């Protein structure tokens, strides 16, 4: 890969990769290290990728694998089935716009790791469920399940933070509006 092409790739992807790494590792230092390592691996192995349009997916996949490798533990991905979802978990939506970015990130960091990775890919780069399945190497149905469950967890964490911050909680369906007493 020519230097200008590499630089363009770095310019386009180092921010999203760092944010993805930060959401996984919850450490700025480790996120920076993972991002650097991912690009070094691209420099070493990227030429093996025939379809250049897959470079973004390759980078996210590699970073995720590096992260898992560093954890050196078996990550257990809970099998969340549809019937485990409680509808009320999906019915409450916090007011994200009213929350500070750091609090939103903090809430995301509190979501369990198997759900956090697909959520971050979904939000950061607007990866489709098929692309997320490729990056995480899991079936499409599992991605949907994790997105659904992950969003439910995220909402719960955000609502807790909203309550602490004294913001409004809007409950859909019943169209109730509550004022928190935080």
């Amino acid at each position, binding site marked *: 890969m020519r230097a200008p092409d590499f630089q363009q790739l770095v310019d386009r992807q180092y921010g999203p990769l760092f944010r993805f790494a930060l959401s996984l590792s919850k450490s700025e230092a480790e996120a920076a290290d993972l991002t*650097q390592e991912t690009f*070094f691996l691209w*420099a070493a192995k990227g*030429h093996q990728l025939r379809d250049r349009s897959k470079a973004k997916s390759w980078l996210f996949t590699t970073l995720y694998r590096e992260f898992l490798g560093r954890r050196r533990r078996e990550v257990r991905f809970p099998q969340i089935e549809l019937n485990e979802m409680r509808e009320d978990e999906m019915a409450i939506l916090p007011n994200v716009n009213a929350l500070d*970015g750091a609090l939103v990130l903090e809430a995301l960091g509190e979501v369990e790791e198997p759900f956090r990775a697909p959520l971050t890919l979904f939000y950061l780069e607007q990866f*489709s469920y098929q692309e997320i399945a490729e990056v995480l190497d899991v079936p499409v149905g599992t991605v*949907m399940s994790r997105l659904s469950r992950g969003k439910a967890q995220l909402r719960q964490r955000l609502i807790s933070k909203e309550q602490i911050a004294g913001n409004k909680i809007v409950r859909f369906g019943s169209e109730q509006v509550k004022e928190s007493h935080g």
Partner: protein
Amino acid sequence: MDNREVKFILSAYRPAGQDASDPRFAEALDQARHDPILQLWFEESVAFDAAMAQKLCGMAVPDDLRENILIGVKVGCGSGWTKRFGKWAIAAAFILVAAVGSLIWHDTRPAHLTGWQSAALEVISSLVRNESSFDAQSRSSGDLVGWLRANHAPAAGKLPDSLKNLESIGCKKFSWNGVSVSVICFTRSDGGLIHLVAMKAVGKQGKGGAHLVQRGGWATATWRDGDMIYMLALEGSPDQLRSYLL
């Protein structure tokens, strides 16, 4: 398909509408269109996702990250960008990022340790916590340096003056991404411990001032001397560490 299933499927629907023509979403979208409550939920859900995406994309990225990536890879690549890297080149890039980082970073900025430094601290921590054992033990650092050399591990050609009079405990060698690294642990005069990590540098000979980083409870100083890179580490403050650099 009941409402719960519709919500489950539409949880994967991207807020910018890229999935509008995906047949997997068609039935759920259609059902939402014909159910006002479901439609309201869907609109609010998409708004929530869009707001989340906006918040997350606004997360700050370290100022020096881009520069470190470009410099590290460029230097590690040698003269040609088409040259294919091996593990050594990757390792070289990390080493050079550390070295270049010492020129770019300031003590007051957020501290980053590169991969080999983090790996070294993990090894040291495991030694301190008795979770791993030394490869060789001696109160004489000269003995340990000799053992490391005999076992083809990187060892300081000349120990820093501040460490010469300290009693050593032991040493350990380990590999980071295929690169050999060694650590010697010393007992400080105040009873605490201090650790010298050594690693062979790749590229031209060089010499530079120490770069101090505080990470967690650890203070580290990294510098290059000739064809070696050293890191001195202790659990404490940079001020405590500075006294060993003078």
